């Protein structure tokens, strides 16, 4: 397992930079440098220049990556917890309960997701919390299906029957036999959920439905860059390239994990 794992290294490097950069740069993400509005790259202290109101691009990039990853990881964790709880319950009980629970999942799948998010935004106003709720609503569904399938397969395995014959209570069987055995698969899908959430969050932000200014995310940065791309293409290329790199690397790692466990 010591062979070079390029995608993982890239992801870790991006995360590290996003965390450390704010302490190294003399600028914060919302600080305006009146002397250097629309500064080109490598001019003075601004490595990647500044945007149209004079905020340092690199600082904003780091802040955006941080927000995007934070939303992604939090939403993925929420989907993990809800998905495992729902899927494991359905799979373990089985029968009619399972049918009913999985029909609910199917129903939620069928809802037009964007429509709901826009409704939520209109009713409650824009906030990071709502982005979580909106994304979490969708992402746990796949996890629940995956976990349910795994639990149903495990339930038939002789070692579960042996545990039952040994008098082990259902609760303990669930906690100590079933959960450890689905952990690998769940982890792999968690890794695959993160890039999906990054994607959804960026998409929402690009439409102006994500986090609010002056907070920023990769999606907002791409949008701002796109508005201004004939003047300063760097503003689009930087966040766009970073987003693509992050998505590709996370997906490759996630699929590698999934292949290993299934």
């Amino acid at each position, binding site marked *: 397992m010591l062979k070079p794992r390029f995608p993982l290294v890239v992801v870790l490097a991006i995360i590290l930079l996003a965390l450390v950069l704010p302490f190294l740069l003399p600028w914060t993400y919302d600080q305006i440098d009146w002397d250097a509005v629309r500064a080109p790259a490598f001019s003075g202290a601004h490595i990647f220049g500044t945007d149209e109101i004079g905020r340092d691009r690199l600082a904003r990039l780091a802040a955006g990556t941080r927000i995007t990853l934070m939303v992604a990881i939090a939403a993925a964790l929420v989907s993990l917890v809800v998905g495992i709880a729902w899927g494991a319950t359905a799979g373990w009980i089985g029968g009619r309960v399972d*049918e009913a629970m999985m029909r609910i999942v199917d129903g939620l799948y069928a809802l037009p997701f964007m429509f709901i998010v826009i409704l939520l935004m209109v009713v409650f106003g824009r906030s990071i919390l709502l982005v979580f709720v909106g994304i979490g609503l969708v992402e746990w569904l796949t996890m629940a299906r995956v976990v349910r399938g795994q639990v149903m397969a495990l339930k038939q*395995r*002789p*070692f579960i*029957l*042996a*545990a*039952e*014959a*040994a*008098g*082990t*209570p259902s609760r303990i069987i669930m906690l100590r*036999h079933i959960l*450890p*055995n689905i952990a690998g698969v769940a982890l792999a899908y968690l890794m695959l959920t993160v890039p999906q959430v990054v994607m959804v969050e960026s998409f929402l932000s690009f439409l102006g439905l994500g986090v609010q200014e002056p907070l920023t995310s990769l999606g907002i940065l791409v949008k701002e860059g796109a508005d201004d791309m004939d003047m300063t293409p760097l503003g689009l290329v930087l966040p766009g390239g970073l987003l693509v790199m992050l998505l590709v690397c996370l997906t490759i790692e996630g699929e590698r994990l999934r292949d290993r466990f299934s």
Partner: protein
Amino acid sequence: MSLYEIRNMAVSIAGQRLVEDVSLTVEAGQCTALIGASGSGKSLTCLTPFGLTRGVAMGSMVLDGIDLGSADAARIREARCRLTGFIFQQPLTALTPHLTVGAQLQEATMQAGAARPSVRELVRQLERVGLSRADERLDQFPHRLSGGERQRVMIAAAIAHNPKLLVADEPTSALDASLRAEIMGLLYQLRIEQGLGLLLVSHDLASVEGHADQLVVMDRGRVVERGPASKVLSDAREDYTRRLIAATPRLHEPAPKLSRPGEILLETRGLGVTFDRPGWRRGKIQALADASLIIRQRESLAIVGGSGSGKSTIGRGIAGIGPVTEGEILWRGSMLPERRKRSLDMRRLIQPVFQDPVASLDPQWRVQDIVVEPLRNLRPGLTTAEYQEMARVALTDVDLAEEFLARWPTSLSGGQAQRVAIARAIIASPQLLVLDEATSALDPLVGAGILELLLRLQSENGISLLFITHNIAAARRLCHRIAVMEDGRIVETGTMREVIGHPAHPATQKLISAS
């Protein structure tokens, strides 16, 4: 000249020698059987010369005048298509699920460059392998066929292009005893009629006896012994072969020495199990009906039957890990409640052991925790040191060293894993073990070891055994009495000697003649 001759062949995968110095011959119209435990390299030996494994074969392998050892990939492929047919163990996975039987046969016929066969020709091919209603079968998909029918289709596809050599890798291991006899009979007939040479690979000596002309015994990548089958069987030179022959259960070997049964321990009266059909569909499936049997103390009862005969269902019902919908189970004369209502002490008395030893151990647990699991529930409150000591004793009982306590299940062989499973079953001193095909998935030598272990446990600890199996000869080594099942019903019960000597029911006769 022989049809197929291998001389001093070695097979290596990724630089590692796995098979060495193998020589064998297959004559036209005759059968050469390759026998060995799992991992002995027998599949590598027969598949690698045709480029069907990742391995590289070195040495001389001559098929009908073509040296496969020096031929290039295209020539090997041509020889494979034109001259050889292959049959594999799993008939369902070896047939393509989305193609009809007819389409697969057509493809198989045309692979050697023959013209597109007519429907009549395809029907004739199916009739050749003894499949009834052949014209209907052509339009069916593999999942519609039973295991035996699928294997017949496999054989039909393997011989569709009139090959000279048929390579059969465990062709009957996944089948019932009676189906096995039918398939072997079919292969025999094809050999005689068409002069096919047959290279038969099996881990089970019993399944090739009476069919093989030549016998090649392999162990750990080497040929241990080879020669005419009758000579090897009656007068084996090598110790390994002798042990293998002794380990293979036979119906007419001398009766084993068994313990003397005592009082009635468990009795079932009119036991029945009906399932609702899965999903929202209506209807019921009767898996078991009106099953009544008795097990005494220190007694072994064999439940024998084909697949789907309900023998596992009754075992699970008794062990409390499967449903029981009708009838009652009496334990020492008093009612045994339904499975979830059994007290912890009741559960302790009956413990199951399963067919697939590796799957019956949680891969995330150490052997020590696995063995101790029943104790933690049934006798809570002991200290860790006490648990550990009891686990050590239980492992000693099943002839495993103490160092196994710290191992993970994935690092165990099949036989070791089954011993761990038995240790887990006996640690809480049960009085009845329900063994569901406990030796069927194991190699003959390992399986014989488990049978001996069970006999010893019975004589030392006075445990009763419910031995569920499809192999009547293996049951005879262990059991006092036998119950034969068919279609969810017990059709015949009696002592081992009575039933084997004078089988009354057709199902019993079929099982006995097949083994």
